[in-house]
């Protein structure tokens, strides 16, 4: 009976709110927004109920990815203050419950998307979930300091899936939006990594500022901002968008590059004095949001 007493926390069924926390709702909100934008700019018509179902499926797929990520990274999360209070490391949920929930939600989201819209979109959603879990979480995250670059790809899939839900194929414009999120992620995340001193090192995750140093991180931010800028302007150069997106992209990318250049030139190591780094991080969120608003406005107003 002694062992039973010790496992008492596991006998307590997890609160339903902990299952919600397992899906990383805040990460999900970005997927919902960009999936909606991808869906909104696609040519052709989709019934509003099916559009809603498509966005819901993509959100559930993102939630499943979050749950499976937390299932796999329980030990890593336990070693870091920021994540130690998640349901699994805090002991509020049985690890197997998280696995079952994640796998179940993943299958459900893919099947729902396939039945409601088409199997091309469903296949890309399945690919995105597998990519996030196998390529990012299991394979690359513990092994390379460029892990966040690869992780960005998983976050870049939603507009592609939203588009495919309408057209059943992929096209240059959603691929450009994929590239925009993909190359936006490194400067966005590394700006945060500069001023938030996380304990990734304790958990054995090779984050760039820890492994390569802050100067290398600042240089990489500047480098990826260049590639991001090229992706942002690609739809303009290819004639895929009109004057609204073109103007927005030029102005906002210019501001982004200015902020990134300031960060690149600085050598500040005290997080309390990292004003420009904080400004780049905050602006990066606004930037992505406004760029997607602009591409939707472009399509709707100039259509």
């Amino acid at each position, binding site marked *: 009976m002694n062992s039973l007493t010790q496992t008492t926390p596991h006998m307590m069924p997890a609160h339903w709110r902990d299952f919600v926390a397992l899906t990383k709702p805040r990460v999900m909100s970005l997927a919902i927004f960009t999936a909606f934008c991808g869906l909104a700019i696609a040519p052709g018509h989709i019934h509003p109920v099916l559009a809603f179902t498509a966005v*819901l499926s993509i959100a559930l797929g993102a939630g499943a990815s979050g749950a499976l990520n937390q299932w796999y990274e329980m030990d890593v999360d336990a070693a870091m203050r920021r994540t130690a209070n998640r349901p699994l490391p805090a002991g509020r949920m049985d690890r197997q419950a998280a696995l079952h929930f994640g796998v179940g939600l993943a299958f459900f989201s893919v099947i729902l998307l396939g039945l409601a819209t088409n199997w091309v979109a469903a296949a890309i959603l399945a690919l995105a979930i597998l990519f996030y879990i196998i390529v990012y979480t299991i394979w690359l995250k513990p092994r390379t300091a460029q892990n966040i670059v690869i992780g960005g790809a998983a976050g870049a899939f939603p507009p592609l899936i939203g588009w495919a839900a309408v057209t059943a194929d992929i096209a240059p414009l959603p691929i450009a939006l994929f590239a925009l999120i993909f190359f936006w992620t490194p400067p966005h995340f590394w700006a945060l990594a500069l001023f938030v001193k996380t304990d990734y090192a304790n958990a054995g995750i090779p984050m760039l500022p820890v492994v390569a140093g802050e100067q290398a991180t600042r240089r990489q931010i500047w480098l990826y901002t260049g590639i991001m800028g090229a992706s942002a302007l690609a739809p303009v150069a290819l004639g895929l968008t009109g004057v609204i997106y073109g103007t927005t992209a030029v102005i906002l990318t210019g501001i982004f590059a200015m902020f990134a250049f300031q960060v690149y030139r600085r050598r500040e190591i005290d997080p309390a004095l990292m004003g420009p780094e904080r400004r780049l991080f905050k602006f990066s969120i606004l930037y992505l949001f406004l760029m997607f608003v602009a591409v939707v406005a472009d399509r709707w107003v100039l259509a």
Partner: protein
Amino acid sequence: MTPEEENQIRARQRGRAIVTGLLLGALVILFYAITIAKISMK
């Protein structure tokens, strides 16, 4: 197991049952709406 623990477990189970029920109800409505949407497109 103390009575307090048992009460807490029962409360958790009740909460999960209610949420599961609401989700299933929402899915019934969703699948109905999808069906109508698919029929109306034909």
